C-alpha cells in the first residue's frame, strides 16, 4: 500500500486514495486527440448528450408510466402529457431525442465509413459501434410500444411476426417473444422490462467498451494519417502546441464539442417544442385497437431502409416465397454493416474515401441507395414504388457483394503505394 500522508487539501486527500489526478490526466487532460479533424468528430459527444437526455427524461417518465395495456395509453397521454407539470416536456424530449439520436448515429457511422475509421486496428471500435446501433434499435422498438397506441400495437404485431419466418422454430419463437399467442399485456410488460432495464444496461456496457476500444488505436483524423501519439503528445506538453498534431481531450477538444452540442441542442429544442410530428407519429395518438388496422403501417424513419429491404422482394422467385427471400435479405442487411472491416480487403491502407476512387463511388452509391430505400420504405408498396424498392434492394445487396472485389482491386493497384492516391 502506498504511504498515506497527512493531506494538504481535499483533492490531495482524494488523490492519495483514488489517484484522481492520474485519473483526470488519463481520461481528460492527457487523452490525446488528433488536431486535424472536423465537426463530424464531435458526433460522439453529441450522441452522449442525447443519450443522457434520454436517460434523464426516461427516469421522469418512468415515475408516471403504467405498463398495463388498460392503463398505458392514458398514463402517457393524460397523466404525463396533461396532468404532471412539464410532463409533456419530458415526453417530447424523450420522443424527439430517440429519433434525433438515430440521425446522429447514421452521421457518425457514415463518417466512420468515409474516413476508413473501421479498419486497421479500429475493428473493435466499429464492432462495438454496430452492436450499439443494434441495441439502440431494440431500445427504440421496445420504447415505441410503450404508449400502446395504434402504431405501437401494429408495429409490435408486424415485427414480432417476422420471427415466424425463421425455419422450423419460427412459430414457437413468435409465441416465446410475445409471451402470449397474440400481442397482448404480457408482450407489453416484457418489452417494458427490456426498455427500462436490460437494454439500457447492455448499452451502458457497450458504450464503456466502445470508448475503451478507442484508446489503443486512437481517434482517426481527416487524412487518416498515422500519428506517433507519444511523440506528438510530448511536443504538446513541451509547449510546442502549434507544431504538435494532437490536442488534449480537455479542454481543447471538448471546447469545440461544446459549441457543436450547443448548435445541436438549439435545433433539438426547436423540434421538441414546435416540430415533433416526425418523431411522435400522429397515428400513435389513437389507442391500440386490434380490430382496426391502420391504412398505412410503417416503422419509424430510421428503420425504413431495412424495412424496404424486407419487402423489396414482392414476388416469388424459383418457387421460393417472396416473404422468405425478403426475410433473408433483411437478415443480410442487418448483419452486413457489422462485417464491414472484414469485407474491405484493402487491409493495409487507411485513407479517406476521396483518396480511394472506387471506394468513393461505392460510398456515395451506398448513401444514395439507403436514402432511396428509406423514402420508398414509407411509401405504399404499389405500382412503380414496388419496383423502385426492388431495384434499390438489389443495389444494396450488390454493393456489399462488390465491396471485397473493389477493395481487393484497390489493394492490388500499384499506383501510389496500394490503391490510395
Amino acid at each position: 500500500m502506498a504511504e498515506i500522508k497527512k493531506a494538504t487539501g481535499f483533492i490531495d486527500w482524494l488523490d492519495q486514495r483514488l489517484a484522481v489526478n492520474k485519473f483526470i490526466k488519463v481520461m481528460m487532460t492527457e487523452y490525446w486527440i488528433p488536431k486535424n479533424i472536423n465537426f463530424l468528430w464531435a458526433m460522439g459527444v453529441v450522441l452522449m448528450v442525447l443519450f443522457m437526455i434520454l436517460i434523464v427524461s426516461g427516469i421522469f417518465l418512468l415515475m408516471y408510466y403504467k405498463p398495463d395495456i388498460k392503463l398505458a395509453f392514458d398514463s402517457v397521454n393524460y397523466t404525463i402529457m396533461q396532468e404532471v407539470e412539464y410532463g409533456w416536456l419530458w415526453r417530447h424530449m424523450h420522443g424527439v431525442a430517440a429519433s434525433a439520436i438515430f440521425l446522429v448515429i447514421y452521421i457518425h457511422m457514415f463518417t466512420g465509413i468515409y474516413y476508413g475509421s473501421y479498419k486497421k486496428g479500429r475493428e473493435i471500435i466499429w464492432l462495438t459501434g454496430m452492436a450499439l446501433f443494434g441495441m439502440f434499435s431494440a431500445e427504440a422498438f421496445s420504447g415505441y410500444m410503450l404508449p400502446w397506441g395504434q402504431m405501437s400495437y401494429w408495429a409490435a404485431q408486424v415485427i414480432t411476426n417476422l420471427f415466424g419466418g425463421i425455419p422450423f422454430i419460427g412459430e414457437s419463437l413468435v409465441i416465446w417473444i410475445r409471451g402470449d399467442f397474440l400481442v397482448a399485456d404480457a408482450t407489453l410488460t416484457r418489452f417494458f422490462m427490456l426498455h427500462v432495464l436490460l437494454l439500457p444496461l447492455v448499452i451502458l456496457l457497450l458504450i464503456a467498451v466502445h470508448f475503451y476500444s478507442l484508446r489503443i488505436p486512437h481517434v482517426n483524423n481527416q487524412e487518416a494519417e498515422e500519428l506517433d501519439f507519444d511523440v506528438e503528445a510530448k511536443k504538446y506538453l513541451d509547449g510546442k502546441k502549434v507544431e504538435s498534431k494532437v490536442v488534449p481531450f480537455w479542454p481543447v477538444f471538448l471546447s469545440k464539442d461544446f459549441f457543436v452540442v450547443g448548435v445541436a441542442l438549439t435545433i433539438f429544442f426547436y423540434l421538441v417544442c414546435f416540430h415533433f410530428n416526425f418523431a411522435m407519429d400522429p397515428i400513435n395518438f389513437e389507442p391500440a385497437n386490434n380490430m382496426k388496422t391502420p391504412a398505412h403501417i410503417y416503422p419509424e424513419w430510421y428503420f425504413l431502409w431495412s424495412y424496404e429491404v424486407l419487402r423489396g422482394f414482392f414476388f416469388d422467385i424459383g418457387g421460393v416465397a417472396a416473404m422468405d427471400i425478403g426475410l433473408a435479405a433483411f437478415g443480410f442487411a442487418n448483419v452486413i454493416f457489422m462485417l464491414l472491416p472484414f469485407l474491405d480487403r484493402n487491409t493495409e491502407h487507411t485513407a479517406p474515401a476521396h483518396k480511394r476512387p472506387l471506394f468513393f463511388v461505392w460510398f456515395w452509391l451506398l448513401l444514395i441507395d439507403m436514402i432511396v430505400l428509406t423514402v420508398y420504405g414509407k411509401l405504399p408498396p404499389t405500382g412503380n414504388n414496388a419496383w423502385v424498392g426492388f431495384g434499390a434492394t438489389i443495389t444494396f445487396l450488390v454493393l456489399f457483394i462488390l465491396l471485397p472485389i473493389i477493395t481487393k482491386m484497390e489493394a492490388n493497384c500499384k499506383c501510389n503505394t496500394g490503391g490510395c492516391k
Partner: protein
Amino acid sequence: MRELKILAVVIFFTAVVYWGVEPFAHSQMHPHVAPADFAFKDLGVSAKKGDAAKGAETFLNAGCIGCHGVSSQGMAAPMDNASASASFGVVPPDLSTAGAIYDKNFLAALIKDPTKALKVEHKFNESRPHPMIAFFGLGGDIDQEVADIVAYLQSIAPVAPMDDKQVYADACQRCHDMKYDKLMSTTDKAALMAYMGTVPPDLSIMIRAKGAEYLSTFINNPQKQLAGTSMPRVGLTEKAQSQVIAYMEKVGDRKKAEREDLGYKLIGYMVLFTLLAYAWKVKIWREVH
C-alpha cells in the same frame, strides 16, 4: 471552408431524407382533398324565404317533438337517454341551438331527406330505414314549409355567441366521448355499437392524431377522407366547426401555449450557450492553431 462544405453535404442529405419521409410520403399516403364546402352545394339551395311564426306551427304539426326535445322552449325530450338509445340507436339531438350551429341549407335538406344530407345512403335504405323520418309535408308547398321550420329554428337559437364546449356538446357528444374532459356520450355504448357498427372513437386527443387541417375537411364531409365510414356529415357552419376544433385542441393539446412559450426560452438559452461556447472555443484554439 472545408467544414462548411461538409456541413452543407450533411444538411443536404438530411433535408432530402426528411422531405422524403415526411411531406412527400404523407402527400402520397393521404391524397389532397378539396377544401371544406360550408355551402353544402351538393344539396342545392332553396329560394324560399321562411317565416318563423308559421314555422313554429309547422314544427309542432310535423311531429318533430315526437323524438326531439327543444329545452330552451320548455319542450323536454320525450324519452330519457337510455330509452332513446334503445329505440333509435342514438339519442336524437335537442334542437335548441340547431339554428345557430347548423347551416340553413343543410337543415332544410336534412328535414326533407336525412340520409342524403347526412351522406349515409350506403348504410340506410328501405329495408333499414334511418331513424329520422323524412318530412313529407303538411299538404302545402313542402319547400315553403321546410323553409318555415328552418326559420323557426333560427329564431329560437341563442343570439349570444356560444362557447366552444357547448357547440361540441350539441354537435358531437351524442356519439363521442371526450374522456379527458369528462364528457361522455349521451347515447348508451351498446346501442351505439349496434347502430354505428363500431363504437365512435374517444375524441380526447384526436387533435394530435389527425390535426386541425384533416378534421376541418373530415367533419365537413367524412366520406371525403374516409369513404364508407358510418359517421354522418354533421352540417356545421364554418364558425361552429371551427369552435368544435378549437375545443378539441383545448382538451387534446392543453399544453400548447405553455409548450410554445417555453420553446422560445429554451431556444434562447441554447443560442446564448452556443455563442459563449463558440467564444470559449476560439480562445482555447488560438493557442494550438
